């Protein structure tokens, strides 16, 4: 009896939903889909950096935005792609002249710093969305919410703690950029068709090991619509993996092997180059 009632009811209810959709002509919300050229990056002895391709499409696009985008470049879809590495604690140190020698003085330790961070956009961030939203989504080098944990000041400096933190935070980003670990590519996201996008992001030779995350963000008319993410695993393989893991899990054994290798090399040399 119960089952019968449900069946009967659903016959009545289902058309109501269908009609509602048809009458209001409500378009489903635009969303974003993504894909990666690699989900695993393997570091072998010949690893010298590589590129990763992040691509995707806009689902249920608003035809108005898509067509206008091609004509005017205003009121359009924007895509931001972010590739960030595992979180780290980083200490930024500043050299100061002490007794004529440049030695490390003040330092600030930051928590939750992505080991690497690369992002690409279709346009400059300020044209894509409000500064508040971009900051909330932590897009862009200035908007990463790195937290100063410990501040070691040097006595006799006139700097306030806030000044110190700001200067050190800027230096953190600059040094990461110098090491190719932070990267920005404004305008790097290309639309292959009105809804298909692609971007190539660099993976530097010194890419940090661990789990990286690729995120794509969809904006339209200055508003955030949707986001997706995929994990990328960066790991050493083969000999590199074995060596690294052994060194960090069993340093004693690693050291003994290192000594044995050295002794063997020394012995081999004395046999090969023996004078008599």
């Amino acid at each position, binding site marked *: 009896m119960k089952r019968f009632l449900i069946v009967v009811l659903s016959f009545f209810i289902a058309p109501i939903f269908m009609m509602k959709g048809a009458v209001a002509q409500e378009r489903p919300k635009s969303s974003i889909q993504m894909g990666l050229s690699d989900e695993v990056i393997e570091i072998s*002895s010949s690893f010298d950096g590589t590129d990763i391709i992040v691509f995707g499409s806009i689902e249920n696009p608003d035809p108005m935005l898509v067509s206008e985008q091609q004509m005017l470049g205003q009121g359009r879809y924007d895509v931001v792609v972010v590739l960030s590495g595992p979180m780290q*604690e*980083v200490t930024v*140190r500043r050299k*100061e002249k002490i007794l004529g020698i440049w030695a490390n003085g003040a330092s600030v330790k930051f928590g939750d710093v992505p080991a690497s961070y690369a992002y690409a956009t279709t346009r400059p961030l300020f044209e894509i969305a409000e500064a508040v939203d971009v900051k909330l989504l932590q897009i862009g080098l200035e908007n990463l919410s790195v937290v100063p944990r410990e501040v070691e000041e040097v006595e006799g400096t006139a700097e306030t703690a806030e000044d110190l933190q700001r200067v050190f935070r800027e230096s953190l980003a600059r040094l990461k950029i110098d090491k190719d670990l932070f990267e920005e590519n404004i305008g790097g996201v290309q639309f292959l068709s009105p809804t298909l996008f692609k971007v190539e992001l660099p993976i530097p030779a010194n890419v940090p090991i661990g789990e990286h995350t690729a995120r794509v963000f969809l904006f339209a008319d200055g508003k955030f619509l949707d986001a997706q993410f995929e994990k990328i695993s960066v790991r050493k393989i083969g000999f590199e993996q074995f060596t690294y893991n052994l060194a960090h899990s069993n340093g004693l054994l690693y*050291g003994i092997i*290192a000594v044995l*290798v050295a002794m063997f090399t020394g012995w081999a*040399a004395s046999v090969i180059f023996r004078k008599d």
Partner: protein
Amino acid sequence: MFLPQWDAIFLRLAVRLSSRLPFVNIYLPIAEMSVNILVLFGMGAGVGFLSGMFGVGGGFLMTPLLIFYNIPPAVAVATEANQIVASSFSGALAHFRRGTVDIKLGVVLLIGGIAGSVIGVAIFSELRKAGQLDLIISILYVVFLGSIGTLMCIESINAIRKSRRSPEEVAPLPEQKNWITNLPFKVRFEKSQLYLSVIPILVLGMLVGILASIMGVGGGFIMVPAMIYLLRVPTNVVIGTSLFQIMFVTAFTTIAQSATNQTVDVVLAFILMVGGVIGAQFGARAGTKLKGEQLRALLGLIVLAVCARLGWDLVNMPTELFSLDLGGH
């Protein structure tokens, strides 16, 4: 003031030219960087050549070179200890076959050396945490290279002058008793024909052990003169015995650094070792063709040049004042 950094310019040029070849870039698993294998091999062979020519360990030249090549100083120092194991092992083997090692004296030096290495590795860890390791390594190098280079130059210039006047004249060791002979805990060392307190031997061994772990050197440049002039060890067993001690102390340091700081890069060490042992063979041959005093003067100048470069980096305002230090690495 402008000092052209020729080594850096040369390195960059060599890297630029050779990095086009296949199999040239190799990833170092511990230093976590991609390096040019030919440059490292060349550095190993070059320093090996000098060490073969002059009969020195070469660690005090290799470690600064690695630092100039942007290898993190912590990795450079610990890895260099590993390389010295290889070079001192083949040397110690040769001396052992010839019977020019005083094992008993070597063991006492070694006990001091291991104690020193333990202390040194602990200091190394603490300095690293405080962010002052690179600075202390540089200062130690400037002090040691500066004083040893100066002494070598003065001594060899005097020797060259003297040999021009009377080539046969050899300065005898002063025979007067010094304070060392009055210390307690005396032990008889049959091979060296010495009856000597173990205290100065242990202290010397310990000093060398500390240097091995903080500076990545064998310490022969301190141990050999100290053994000759302070302990009065006969010159025929000095080199063999010091190599015996250096080999075991650097082996111990390698293991201790691996276990505590994870800074020994076997791949880097192996490239340097192979380059080093090959270079040393050619160096030894070249060394027989040059006069001793001239060799020492030349080495003294090389040592002073490396010292000047490191010293310049300390006092010259760096282009980048800030540096990153990954916590827990």
